[in-house]
């Protein structure tokens, strides 16, 4: 039918895979590359929707550098991200060590544990908002049971970011757990047996055997968590919209407000670009750190 003698070697040498990629390439260009090019162009214009557009070159970027609210939102973003990376990392690793063991109902409990990160963030955020309520919220009731005074949670400028992070931790600790669990599955048994013969205790085994071996997986968790926490929008927007005042306004929320509340498209575009560059730089730094940890561990192994 189709087979001709000449066709055989040519397919064998170079099967044509490019057509498979073409549709995706077109879509990526249309919904990813084009928007980016357009954003770069917009960022060089002074343009509020419904008004005249004028070319201003780098002015938006200069204004951004002088914008106190932007710097404040950057600080909020860093604060939020640091907490939202470290806490899930710590708790997720402990959870992974537990779920790596054998015990009854293990599969079922793991399934339950994974549910928060699949649940719809907005729906989750609404229920947390009710739980954080200063007078009627269940959290302050629990605090009162153990004799701690009522907190303002997301309604207090001082506690709003840590409170939001509680939700983030609740939702994303399972992802860290899954990643680390994947790492633990690949850990060989023999070193532990020899360590036991040498009389190592549980902590020593964890510190000198487990931790170095799951190091690369922890770094992956850090990278993914960092990117996600920087981009976090749904929970913050649904719960506080950046408030009270601007106390929980991260760059992403500020960006949203500039673009879709003030319709200041040019300025928002400049901010989007700076924000994206920040994310890229940070991920590359983390990737490099990851390379280093992998190397140093290879060195330690000798």
């Amino acid at each position: 039918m189709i087979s001709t003698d000449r066709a055989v070697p040519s397919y064998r040498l170079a099967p044509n895979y490019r057509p498979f990629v073409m549709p995706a390439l077109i879509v990526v260009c249309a919904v990813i590359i084009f928007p980016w090019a357009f954003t770069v162009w917009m960022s060089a214009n002074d343009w509020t929707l419904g008004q005249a557009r004028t070319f201003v070159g780098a002015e938006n970027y200069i204004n951004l550098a002088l914008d106190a609210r932007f710097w404040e939102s950057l600080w909020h973003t860093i604060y939020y991200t640091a907490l939202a990376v470290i806490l899930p990392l710590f708790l997720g690793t402990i959870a992974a060590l537990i779920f790596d063991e054998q015990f009854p109902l293990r599969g079922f409990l793991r399934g339950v544990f994974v549910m928060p990160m699949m649940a719809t963030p907005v729906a989750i955020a609404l229920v947390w908002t009710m739980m954080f309520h200063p007078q009627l919220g269940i959290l302050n009731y629990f605090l009162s049971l153990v004799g701690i005074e009522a907190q303002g949670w997301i309604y207090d400028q001082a506690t709003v970011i840590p409170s939001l992070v509680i939700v983030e931790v609740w939702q994303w600790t399972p992802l860290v757990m899954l990643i680390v669990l994947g790492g633990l599955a690949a850990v060989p048994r023999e070193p532990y047996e020899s360590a036991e013969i040498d009389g190592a205790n549980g902590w020593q085994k964890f510190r000198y055997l487990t931790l170095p071996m799951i190091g690369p997986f922890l770094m992956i968790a850090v990278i993914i968590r960092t990117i996600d926490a920087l981009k976090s929008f749904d929970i913050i927007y649904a719960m506080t919209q950046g408030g009270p005042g601007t106390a929980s306004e991260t760059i992403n929320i500020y960006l949203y407000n500039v673009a879709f509340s003030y319709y200041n498209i040019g300025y928002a575009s400049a901010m989007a670009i700076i924000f994206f560059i920040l994310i890229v730089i940070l991920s590359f730094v983390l990737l490099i750190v990851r390379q280093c940890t992998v190397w140093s561990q290879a060195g330690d192994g000798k």
Partner: protein
Amino acid sequence: MTHKILGRIGFLFAALVFVSPVVLFFLWMLSLSLKFEIDNAAYPPVFIPEHFAWSNYVKVFAENNFFRYFWNSLLVTGTATLLALVIGVPAGYGIARLKAQKSAIVIMIARMTPGLSFLIPMFLLFQWMNLIGTLWPQIIIHLVVTVPLVVWIMMGYFETTPIELEEAASIDGATSWQVFRMVALPIAKPGIVVSFILSIIFSWNNFVFGVVLANRETRTLPVAVYNMLSFEQVSWGPLAAAALIVTLPVLILTMFAQKEIVAGLTAGAVKGG
């Protein structure tokens, strides 16, 4: 022997400690959704009410056009996922076989970019094209999430499927398309299931695109439930009921497809580095 059993009980207990915030949260959500306002405003809180307020659920559907929004969510999520599979599965195959690192980086960058940055230019584009007011803007922009996800998972999956069978088929004279269709695709079914499920979940949960692009008629469920918060004088029962309705399909899917989701997330995540 007893030592081992004690150890297992200890780990079970530790696991329960970790799982309890999850269980308690969802139980509290259910409790809120089944209580009348008087119970929801009670202090100390009522955990299990004397009378269940099933009417909260009726109210959500009766007063908030929720059938409409459910249908919108189904259409947007379904179309965006199917399109992503049609486009993304062959692309994942092509990238895996071409060993195209550069395309992989593009996909990676797409995953790193905040959704909002796509929204500004796309919002303007949709306005000029007069598409606002239809579901198309949301379907198209959901592809930003679903296509990279499917490509990424399928790329990883096709890298693990054996190439020998495909080579044998092409020696027998099959075209590239036939090799893909008859040999590679059937083997990749588990990978397709994983990317299908994850694509559905992430598209269903998406909020930021809808909040900008949807109007009264074209809202998806997450946006609809958020709007209830801002417009209705906060009454907790119906609000919690609505929140549960939005997230229940995803939770059920998570329960039934736990294995696939775990596999997909860890594969996707580990590849992410």
